[in-house]
């Protein structure tokens, strides 16, 4: 248990010290939020609804990024630099190591969610009910699971450069086509139809529903669970194939 705590603590410290994380997952989403709710689109009919909607988009954007990129690239780094090999000679169990990665990453997500929510409240006076804040925060925390699984999938790549490149492109494509940067409604019909099936859209959609006073659609949940299962199966399968040495 003590090992697990120290391992979690260490993972958290490492993420907070990682400049890419601070930039991509905290600074960028907040800047985007400011720019897109204050400098452009100023003639939107229901301004406060748009401000809450976009706050959710940016929080989802942040958490999705650190699940895929921070986690994925860190895993590849540890393996390609031989650190994982060293760990395999120590008594640290795989389960504890993996669990600590996930818990550490989730603590970081709680932290990001709180910071970005506070930024939203300060920048635009976004005011939601307590229940809405908590519900949307929880949705984003739990909804990150398929993306954490995708992060471990990216973490199986051989080279840091490939992992960084692939996860970056995937991240941007998912964010834009999932309607996190601009609402789906402004996109071509074709794109909208595809987006409905993407994990990023379903992730965002649940949070958008909550701040509009509703509840996430069961379809959002089912699709996210399906993606979680798919990514987990895939990464287990690949890991087993790689282990045949």
């Amino acid at each position, binding site marked *: 248990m003590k090992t697990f705590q120290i391992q979690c603590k260490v993972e958290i410290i*490492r993420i907070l010290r990682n400049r890419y994380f601070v930039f991509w997952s905290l600074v960028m989403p907040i800047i985007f939020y400011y720019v897109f709710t204050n400098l452009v689109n100023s003639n939107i009919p229901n301004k406060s609804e748009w401000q809450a909607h976009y706050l959710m988009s940016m929080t989802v954007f942040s958490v999705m990024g650190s699940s895929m990129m921070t986690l994925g690239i860190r895993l590849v780094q540890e393996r390609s630099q031989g650190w994982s090999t060293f760990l395999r000679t120590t008594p640290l169990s795989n389960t504890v190591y993996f669990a600590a990665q996930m818990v550490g990453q989730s603590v970081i997500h709680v932290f990001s969610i709180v910071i970005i929510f506070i930024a939203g409240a300060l920048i635009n006076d976004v005011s939601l009910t307590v229940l809405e804040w908590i519900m949307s925060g929880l949705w984003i925390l739990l909804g990150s699971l398929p993306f954490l699984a995708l992060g471990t999938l990216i973490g199986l790549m051989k080279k840091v450069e490939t992992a960084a490149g692939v996860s970056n492109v995937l991240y941007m494509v998912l964010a834009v086509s999932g309607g996190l940067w601009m609402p789906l409604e402004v996109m071509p019909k074709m794109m909208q139809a595809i987006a409905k099936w993407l994990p990023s859209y379903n992730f965002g959609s649940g949070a958008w529903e909550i701040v509009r006073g509703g509840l996430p659609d069961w379809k959002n949940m089912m699709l996210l669970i399906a993606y979680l299962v798919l990514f987990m199966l895939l990464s287990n399968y690949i890991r087993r194939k790689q282990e045949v040495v």
Partner: protein
Amino acid sequence: MNEIVTVNNVTKSFQHKKAVDDVSFSISKGEVVAILGPNGAGKTTTISMILGLLKPTSGEVRLFNLLPHEKQVREKIGTMLQEVSVMQGLKVNEILELIRSYYPQPLSIQELIALTGLTPQDLKTRAEKLSGGQKRRLSFALALAGNPELIIFDEPTVGMDITSRKRFWQTVRTLADQGKTIIFSTHYLQEADDAADRILLFKDGAIAADGTPAQIKASITKQSVSFVVDPEKSLEKLYQHSEITDIFRKNNRVYIHTDNTDRILELLFQERIGARDIQIERGKLEEAFEQLTGESKEAI
């Protein structure tokens, strides 16, 4: 039950190549054993199998009479791998605390500092900013963090300066005196001779010799007769004589290895080779080692 390590008919093949070929040995408590051999001899592959990082293609490795990957085994071993790696984003003391937390009875940070020569400055440095030498010291400390009974080092002194090297071997002595079992690999005969009480000589994935440094040295140094001869002159006549264990040309001289130098001298005159500047040598150890393990000699 004093056997700490047993390696039984272990073979490891990669796609087309046998890196380790039917190797067997066992190591008892308190031994300091050098795995000596040139690059590519199979040292790292053997060590990886002992550590449970690679699975033998056939055969079996046991540590403390258990399989290498079992937790009880991992708690009793410490290792420094050939490729030193550290965890990014953490300071040296944070990494040490982390790794210590994995073991039931770790050494204190103070003890680790005393053994490895890590400085207070090192402790506060982030891992990614460490110099090569500092990284080595850290990885040495990580190997000792769990107060292991069996310590395994793969080419530990590569990249160390003379002072650190000296310090490293002193610490190894101290650990050996505490009754720890130590295995290290090296491609320097001198190092194996100085630090180990037993040498496993590896060549092409197999054990070419196993014994004390004195025994190994005696078995690999041969007497030789060397001389200068007209390059046109055929040496074929010499080949038929069984006293010659090896004959080769190096730096304009012909060298003949033998157990009986007197007989070779007789032969040289008898066969009228026209040998000049004849010398009889008790083989130099380093040369003999190179000849045994290297392949760069030119056959006649």
